């Protein structure tokens, strides 16, 4: 049956669409539009040109530890007043309280989501995983700038990091010592 064969092929195609096409498509759309508060996940280069000095934007720093993971994860500063176009450095501190050597990963999100594509990270601890020895504490840097053409209607940007325990065993830490 030609028709039945075509329909079966179509259903396989829809499975492929759901399983193979949709996740990358979703990521592309989120990266392009900044929907979902998605910010850049790889470093961007330094801003060129002068900052816009006639306005200040408030950047708020928020931290969340995912589920019941035994970590503390806090920003060193709660807010910063920034000039769009200039680069700034901020810090977050994470402490591994899990009682074992562990690997952590921070996932950023920006609110409002319409500001996400104007918020650029030049260097961020969220680009990589961090390895921690038992009870180790790390101060982790973040260098960012807000693009000068951020719409005037936005005067506060909230940057939120959720810290995850990836559950992996650290590679670079010699576990026999700990």
């Amino acid at each position, binding site marked *: 049956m030609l*028709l*039945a064969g075509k329909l079966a092929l179509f*259903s396989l195609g*829809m*499975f492929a669409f*759901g399983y193979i096409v*949709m996740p990358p498509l979703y990521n592309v759309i989120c990266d392009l539009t900044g929907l979902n508060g998605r910010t850049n996940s790889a470093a961007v280069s330094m801003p060129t040109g002068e900052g816009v000095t006639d306005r200040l934007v408030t950047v708020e720093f928020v931290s969340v530890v995912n589920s019941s993971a035994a970590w503390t994860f806090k920003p060193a500063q709660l807010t910063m007043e920034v000039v769009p176009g200039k680069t700034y450095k901020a810090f977050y501190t994470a402490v591994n309280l899990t009682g074992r050597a562990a690997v952590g990963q921070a996932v950023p999100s920006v*609110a409002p989501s319409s500001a996400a594509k104007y918020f650029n990270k030049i260097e961020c601890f969220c680009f990589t995983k961090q390895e921690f020895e038992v009870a180790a504490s790390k101060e982790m840097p973040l260098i960012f700038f807000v693009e000068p053409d951020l719409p005037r209607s936005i005067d506060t940007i909230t940057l939120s990091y959720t810290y995850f325990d990836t559950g992996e065993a650290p590679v670079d830490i010699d576990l026999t010592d700990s």
Partner: protein
Amino acid sequence: MSTAAAGHHDHDDHGPAKGWTRWLYTTNHKDIGTLYLLFSLVMFFIGGGMALIIRAELFQPGLQLVDPLFFNSMTTMHALVMIFGVVMPAFVGLANWMIPMMIGGPDMALPRLNNWSFWIMPFAFLLLLSTLFMEGGGPAGGWTLYAPLSLQGGDSFAFVIFSIHFMGISSVMGSINIVATIFNMRAPGMTLMQMPLFVWTWLITAYLLIAVIPVLAGAVTMLLTDRFFGTSFFNAAGGGDPVMYQHIFWFFGHPEVYILILPAFGIISSIIPTFARKPLFGYASMVYATGSIAFLSFIVWAHHMFTVGMPLAGEMFFMFATMMISVPTGVKVFNWIATMWRGSMTFETPMLFAIGFLVMFTIGGLSGLMLAITPADIQYHDTYFVVAHFHYVLVPGAIYSIMAATYYWLPKWTGNMYDEKWGKIHFWVSTVFLNVLFFPMHFVGLAGMPRRIPDYSLQFADWNAVASIGAFGFGFSQLIFVYVIFKCIKGGEKATSEVWEGADGLEWTVPSPAPYHTFEKPPAQFS
């Protein structure tokens, strides 16, 4: 002697096989239709039993009867059983029985595939229900299986995923069969626009199924690999996004909603003209409205997710697209009312269920329109108002249409008239208890009672007690349905081949009960 014996032998070859293996090996569309319908009836009581456990726990505030995890797996399983085990198989069963007879074809186009698509179902549900007895219990994260919650249960989750895969394979095979049947098996000369609306709505439903069930299979496969094979589709720590699950799920889920109601529209469009003794008003507009609903169902999925934090433009788009669906649906409701207008109406049981459908489905449609309003939805989201809404469109919607269809075609299937008095009692008792059950859910929902919670604050107590009384009344009144069906199979007043005075369609030209094989010679009236 030889000719008589040969003739007799011939006749035997065309009847059903003897013994219970008849049902195992059958490729006859009527046998398979019966199997689907009986399976659906059994699952209706299993899913209903789960609903009664939920309502018994919610009869009063506090935790009385079951522990919260089991309560959660009851809400999850109730939905999975009712959607995939009751409404969908019942519609497929009706399609099996009626579509070949309605289009004047001898059988389904792919009879062996048909056998297979039914016999997968009992095993799929055995897998699903068996998880309740496994360590860690059944799935308890809601039927939508949202990640990451659904990934935090026991290892029995793999069984749930595989059972959904099996149900999906069954549905897709059934749908391919239905499309192939409609395109290849119509009586010579019957054009698409001469097909009964039940056939039309099923054709469109089958396409919806073929398009979206594989997407669900993809979504649950991602859950499976996230849970057991270390992928991170929905795990933010690994670069995934849990919100993406909701997008993929509802890209399946919203067309699924119409899969559960379009065949019902077809059934109601068959029944109302019969008992109004007038042809259906606006046949062509009914076909186009069904097509429009099917198209729109693909572009409204995010109205299930207004609270995940979408940009304003997205919320506006999904709000207006959703509201637009009420236009073709309104066309349908208008046409049904116009069909009844100045008709010579009588109110046999199928017509009572059809009118009950019309009134109460519209109530559910109206609360759906309220939920479509984004700013209002943020208040209603995940409350009992949503529960009231989708139960109004599914119980007096889909389920009532299936009951209407059962009463309407039962004389054709069995050759006997059902007991009209008990049929009417079944309708009235069900309708009263159904409203006692679901209407108060609007009130507690608007007052803020969250869904899927085994306990609640005291101010919701009175209406919950009322709803629980309605639930038990509605549940037990379905025993009347079983009694009427059983009695009708056993015997009763013999039905004529027309059965109903105003009935129109090829299925009423064959004797009652319909012979094992019908339309081996195609009907001539279309050529």
